[in-house]
Each structure stands twice: as C-alpha cells, then as structure tokens.
C-alpha cells in the first residue's frame, strides 16, 4: 500500500469511485505533472488498483525478487522472518494473538463471501448517479438543438412577410377597382333609365291618343244612328231572321 502511494503522486487524489478490492493492473509509473505547467488534462485514472497477492503484498515485490530468488524467494523470506520473530520472541505469543487470529479469520471469511456483492451494489449506486448525470447532459443537448431548430424556423417564417403586404395591397386594389366599376355601372344605369323613360312616355302617349280616338269615333257613330235608321235596321233584321228561320225549317 505504501509503495502504491509513493508511485501515485498528488493530482490523482479525489476519486468519486470507491477503489475496488480486486486484481488490478501492474504498473510501474504514472505520468504526473512534474513541471509548473498544469494546463493539459491528465489521462484518466485506471479502473482497478494495483495487483496484490494474498490481499496484502503488491505484485511488484515478487517481481523484484524473482530474478535473484525465483518463484519461492519471497515466500522463503516471509517464512524466515516469521520464524525469526517467533523464536527470538521479538513477537510474543499471548492472548491477543488468539483474538487477532479469530477476528482476522472472520473478517477474511466475510470479505471472501460477500465482497463481490457489496462491490456490485456500490458500483450500481455509482452507475445510477452517472446515468442521471448523463441523462441530464443529453437532455440539455437535445433542448439546445431543438431551440436552434425553432429559431431557424422562426427566421424562415419571418421571411414570408411579403405575402402579407401583397395581400393587403391586393385587397386595396380590389376595393378601388370594384368601386370604379360600380360607378361606371351607375352612370350607365341612370342614363339608360332616363332614355327608357322617355321612350315609355312616348308609347304611353301614343296609346292614349289611339284609345281616345277609337272611343270618339265609336261615340260619334252611335250618335249618328237616328231613330229612323234604328227602326229601319230593326225591320230589316226581323225580315232577315224570318228568312233564315224559313230556310232553317226547310233544312230540318
């Protein structure tokens, strides 16, 4: 753990992710800001921590000893150290030792059994946070794009204003035209009415003159029939009738 802290320097500090206790990558150095310039962003932190063996000892230690002592080297070193501490009583076995052994075994059992589940749960919580943030960002992007589209559409709409004014001018022109035509028609109608009136007046006068003349002629004719003539014409009618009746009787 200490070696890992030494390897990673300052800016890689605050991570919002909980570092998972799992097999990770083996790395020697990370690029860090060594000079005063701090403008370029660092590459992202690795997803997993460094590799460890038995949960405690970093892999780099084993790799460090491998050229000289091979695979079993670190284990021999560990065993030797342990026996040295025990035999020389640098570490004294007492009741604390038993307590530590029990506690440690329980802890190790719990971690091995439930570790993965707890890690998954924590990861899920974080995933949800990330998903929310991402949704917010995507929503913001979409709403901005929609706003841009709407503005462009409004600009396009505004370009059509010439239609409105053309329509208005057309309306005015149509009104004027209609008015002018109405005036022409009025003039024509009035003149025609007067001429027709004169013609009708003349016809009427003619009619009246004719009627009057006919009446006058009839009156005069009736007047001129004297009583003598009336008697004569009645006698003639009777004779005619007799003759007719005789001829009719003869026919029947």
């Amino acid at each position: 753990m200490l070696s890992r802290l030494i390897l990673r320097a300052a800016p890689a500090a605050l991570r919002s992710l909980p570092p998972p206790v799992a097999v990770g990558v083996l790395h020697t150095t990370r690029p860090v800001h060594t000079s005063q310039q701090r403008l370029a962003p660092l590459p992202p932190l690795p997803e997993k921590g460094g590799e460890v063996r038995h949960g405690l000892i970093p892999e780099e230690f084993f790799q460090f000893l491998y050229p000289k002592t091979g695979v079993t080297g670190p284990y021999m070193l560990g065993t030797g150290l342990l026996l040295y501490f025990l035999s020389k009583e640098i570490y004294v076995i007492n009741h604390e030792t038993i307590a530590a052994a029990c506690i440690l075994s329980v802890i190790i059992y719990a971690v091995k059994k439930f570790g993965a589940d707890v890690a998954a749960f924590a990861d899920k919580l974080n995933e949800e946070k990330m998903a929310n943030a991402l949704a917010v960002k995507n929503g913001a992007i979409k709403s901005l794009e929609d706003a841009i589209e709407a503005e462009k559409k409004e600009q396009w709409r505004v370009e059509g204003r010439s239609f409105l004014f053309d329509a208005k001018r057309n309306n005015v022109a149509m009104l004027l035209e209609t008015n002018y035509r109405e005036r022409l028609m009025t003039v024509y109608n009035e003149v025609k009415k007067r001429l027709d009136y004169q013609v009708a007046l003349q016809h009427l006068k003619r009619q009246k003159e004719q009627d009057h003349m006919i009446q006058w002629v009839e009156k005069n004719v009736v007047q001129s029939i004297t009583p003598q003539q009336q008697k004569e014409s009645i006698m003639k009618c009777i004779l005619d009738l007799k003759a007719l009746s005789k001829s009719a009787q003869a026919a029947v």
Partner: protein
Amino acid sequence: MAGRRAAIKAIDWAAFAERVPPNQRAMFNALKTRSDTLSARMTALPEKPPAIDWAYYKATVAKAGMVDEFQKKFSALKVPEPVDTQTAKIDAQEQETAKSTAEYVQASKARIAQYEQQLQKLRNMIPFEQMTLEDLHEAFPETRLDKEKYPFWPHKPIADL
C-alpha cells in the same frame, strides 16, 4: 385604367399559409376570407358597362335634340377613379416591419450563436466517469458548494437536499 389594373398580384395562399405560426392562424383566416369576398365582388361586376344603343333611341324618341344631347354628354363624361389613400400606409408598414424583422433576425442569430456555444461546451466535456469533483464544478458551476455562505455541512440550505 391599365395602370390600375396591374396592381393586383397573384398570391400563393398555400405558401403563405405554411409560414403562418399557429397562434396567428385566426387572423390569417380572416384575411383570406376578406380577400376572397372582395375578389368575388370584383369579378361579379363587368369590367365595362354594356354599350347604349343610340341608334334605337334616336329612331324612337320623338324629341329631337334630346338623344343627341345625352349621347354627347355621355361620351364626354369621365368617371373619376377612386383615390388610393392606403397603399402609401401599407408601404410604410412594410418598411417598418422590414426594420423590425432585421432586428429580430439579428437577435435570433445571436441566440443561436449562444446555443451553439453551449452545445459545443457540452459536447466537448470529458465523460462523467473520468471527472473529479473539481472537474464537475468547472463544467457545471451550479454544483459548486458555497462554503462562505454556508460554512457548515452540508453547505447548502437544508431544503435543497
């Protein structure tokens, strides 16, 4: 007469209708119906009144000079064209709207530029998985906790939790 007649332009009502925003549709419909009524009225009237048959009247009417006098006065009569008072106003309106339109388009373009800027910022952001809290506060300044105003945890009013 011909000069007056040329003032009536053909309007593409379909294209016009497309550009009308939904909240002004009622006004557009009113304008259209008015236009249609006017054009119907105009086409109902004949362009020229029918010619008066002077020969018939001359033959029929007994009074000698009357028809001739009528004819003379009729052909000499000039019907005055109605005066156009509104077109100037409409042109003035058009100029005004041209100006305000230009302003509106200007403002609209400025808004679009703003939106584009924000869009670029959002698109160029580093993904959330690689952000630290500092990076988050830089990208979204509203997430920064005001430690001067609220010196005690949680550094924001309780109601905002």
